[in-house]
């Protein structure tokens, strides 16, 4: 069926059918999803290719956690999933083109306002793991109403939660453009850029968040990290020290200070920071791991051994400590123990890498 025919179909619904469809949507909005499903079915029995009803029904199924049914509605003719895509393909126009959007809006005012603009298909697709389709839907919807901060915030959060950080960045950029005082959006924009290792835009966003929200430990640490990687460890240290002043009993800012000092080659000062961090937060294995590394660098093998054994006692899955332990044992001439520690390191790293590799691929999107 051509897109033109679809439009005509929508416009040619009988007044009774149109009223029935709107009634189903009202039930849907009132969370009477079973009632809504009945209404959609009536429409689809008469007009199986009426895409808006199919999309609404998919959402209802999705909300009822009937994911297979939702997927089926969305996948029926994947190319027909979204009207705009059909129109674009049929007429050879970009889905983002203004005339197309105007025609779409004219044909489906209700759908645009309620359904398409909320990006529900995108959310459903995300939940189903259909990332490429979700991103495409999001981009289409934002072309219809690029300044809808609510929608963009929702989508940004959804993309972040599924580790799709590039579309998340795009969504949060739209939010802050529409709502420049939205602290949460600036924070999330900064975080998503950090994950993408885009240090300069991360710094801009996080600085803005601090301007709006005032100093918060988490924001200062995130901003410091962006500077550390930029690289500007002096600036990072200033920020971490501000975080210490805000939360003097927290171990994490001291840990970050230790890392930045290590990057400056200041091992003695870094050692103090890691010691302090570990004292304040004894459940963190990382400061102990780096403390052990510093001791190893100095050739203090016995000290390093004790420190690294503490690290694995805190977190038996902290594979980094086993690597250093293997090196320490080797230096102490304890070959068998070195091999055991190395095997443990490789085993734990493999387990973690199995999870990470999937995440890493996604995180870089």
């Amino acid at each position, binding site marked *: 069926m051509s897109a033109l025919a679809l439009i005509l179909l929508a416009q040619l619904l009988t007044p009774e059918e149109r009223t029935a469809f709107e009634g189903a949507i009202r039930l849907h909005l009132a969370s009477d999803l079973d009632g809504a499903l009945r209404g959609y079915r009536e429409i689809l029995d008469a007009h199986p290719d009426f895409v808006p009803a199919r999309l609404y029904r998919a959402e209802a199924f999705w909300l009822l956690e009937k994911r297979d049914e939702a997927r089926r509605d969305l996948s029926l003719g994947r190319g027909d999933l979204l009207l705009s895509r059909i129109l674009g393909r049929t007429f050879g126009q970009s889905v983002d083109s203004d005339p197309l959007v105007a025609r779409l809006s004219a044909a489906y005012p209700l759908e645009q306002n309620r359904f398409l603009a909320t990006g529900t298909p995108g959310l459903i697709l995300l939940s189903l793991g259909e990332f490429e389709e979700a991103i495409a839907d999001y981009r289409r919807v934002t072309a219809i109403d690029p300044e809808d901060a609510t929608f963009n915030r929702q989508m940004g959060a959804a993309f972040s939660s599924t580790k799709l*950080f590039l579309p998340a960045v795009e969504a949060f950029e739209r939010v802050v453009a529409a709502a420049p005082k939205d602290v949460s959006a600036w924070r999330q924009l900064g975080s998503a850029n950090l994950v993408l290792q885009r240090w300069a835009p991360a710094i801009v966003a996080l600085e803005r968040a601090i301007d709006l929200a005032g100093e918060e430990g988490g924001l200062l640490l995130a901003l410091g990290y962006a500077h550390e990687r930029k690289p500007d460890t002096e600036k990072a240290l200033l920020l971490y020290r501000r975080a210490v002043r805000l939360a003097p009993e927290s171990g994490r800012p001291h840990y970050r200070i230790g890392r930045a000092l290590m990057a400056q*080659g200041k091992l003695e000062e870094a050692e103090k920071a890691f010691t302090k961090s570990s004292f304040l937060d004894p459940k963190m294995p990382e400061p102990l791991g780096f403390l052990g590394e510093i001791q190893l*660098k100095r050739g203090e093998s016995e000290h390093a051994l004790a420190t690294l054994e503490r690290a694995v006692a805190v977190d038996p899955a902290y594979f980094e400590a086993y690597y250093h332990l293997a090196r320490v044992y080797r230096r102490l001439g304890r070959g068998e123990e*070195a091999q055991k520690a190395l095997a443990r390191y490789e085993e734990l790293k493999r387990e973690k890498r199995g999870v990470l590799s999937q995440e890493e691929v996604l995180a870089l999107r």
Partner: protein
Amino acid sequence: MSRTSPEDADGVRFGALLLLLWSGEAQVRFVDVVEGSGVDLVTTFGSKEKRYIIEYTGTGAALTDYDLDGDLDLYLVNGSAIELPPGAPPTDRLYRNEGGFRFMDVTEAAGLGDTGWGGGSLAGDVDNDGDPDLLVTNFGPNVLYRNNGDGTFTDVTKLTGAAGLEDGRWHSSAAFGDLDADGFLDLYIANHAVYRMEEPPKLPCFWKGIQIACGPLAHRPESHLVYRNRGDFSFADVSDSSGVSSKPGFGFGVVMDYFDDDERLDVYVANDLSGNFLFLNRTEAKGGIVFEDASALSGAGFVEGGREQAGMGVDSGDFNGDGRPDVHTTNFSDDYNTLYRNDGSGLFTDVSFEARLGEVTLPYLGWATAFADFDFDSDLDLLVVNGHIYPEADRFQSGTGYAQSNLLFENAGDGTFRDVSARSGLVEKKLGRGAALGDVDEDGDIDVVVANMHALPALLRNDGGNRRRWVRFLLVGRESNRDGVGARVVLEAGGRSQTRTSKSGGGYLSSHDPRLHFGLAEAPTVERLRILWPSGAVEVYETFPPGEPGKGYVIKEGAGVAAERP
């Protein structure tokens, strides 16, 4: 010299006197003199869009005196492309040094001109007949050329009997060294990834959220090759029996040196994202070549808590004057280049940040690296050649850039380095890959040839590097391999001791001037020179005068010293 007098001692002393008159701050400045040099190869290397991993690794260069006329000639490797325009395919080139940074293309006359998808070039006297032979590593079959001694070469790849040399694997850097101390140069070839042109990876791959050509993790790592040289241009493939082939890695750079204090030449390989290799040589006298994999426990395979870096290039050198070869590797952007200090007994410590080499290198994607005393102040400086692999790096705020400038770090003498890149003239941004070092213009100091992708190479003339005293040695083995590869030279001058290993191959896809260059700073003489030949022979010379432009020394194993140019 107590053992052997130089044949032209008067000339040498005169040169030393001239150099004594010089005083003041020596500052190195590199000037690119490629324009008008006669070197005209603009390398082909895949598409400019870089859609596949095979398209971004680039090529190397070799500086070698192929015609034995006393100066360094230049072999430049060329790549290829998936879709080539009609006409003659891209070919490697040999340029004969005409003096004064002028070159003549003699590729055809020399019988060279490989058209494979080239990567590296390695010069070495495979048959100990006194002239350098040439290995070209390719994506696909490698080529080994025998130097005929008359200015021409013959492709002898098929004579080697080494099947792996001609296989279709993706061969990367290579290094020659006498691994079993039988007097012939054996060969290590690092391979990169299992890659089939007809089956590129289908996964979408991303970098900083941008879709890019898939890197190594979308492929399988390739196993590496070790060949024992039988001495007659035939090689035995000992990759399996040596223990190397069981450990595949995304190999790029290779260097051979003495990493664990014994008398056997070891191998270090920079691998992309698969952990670097340290293979300690455990070959017994008259036994087959055997390695111990010491990569992880040595501390030189990973950084921090066992994290793999994206290793690219590698070189070894004694940066801190303790007599042991340290290791420097280059890595991907947003990661640091790594200096592993050799603590002895095959144990290493990452001292990159303490040495001031960490933070400054984070934005760069490094390839070739080389230790050399560019300013002749008697310690080893560091050169790093850079260039990103993703054209997309310029399309958003990536924190890095596609074309990048190279870096020069001056050894401060206290375990740290200073970034002197800008003041040394290293400001031009290119897609640098391999680099070959050597005294191209025979003025004493160390020049650099950088192989750039999709561009002319940079011929970086070192201006000012020879203002301090220096001396250099060309080693000629007799019991040892003819090139003296693997010989260790310990030089004492001005109260300092410097140790160098004679190497063939290093950095990235390249081969340097075979002569060993030493800066003497203000020391009037070399007080003591000790040479540990691969054969086990030890020779000691005393009271050695510095050289002068164009006049180093040739040291023949068991036969004394002569001026490089009588």
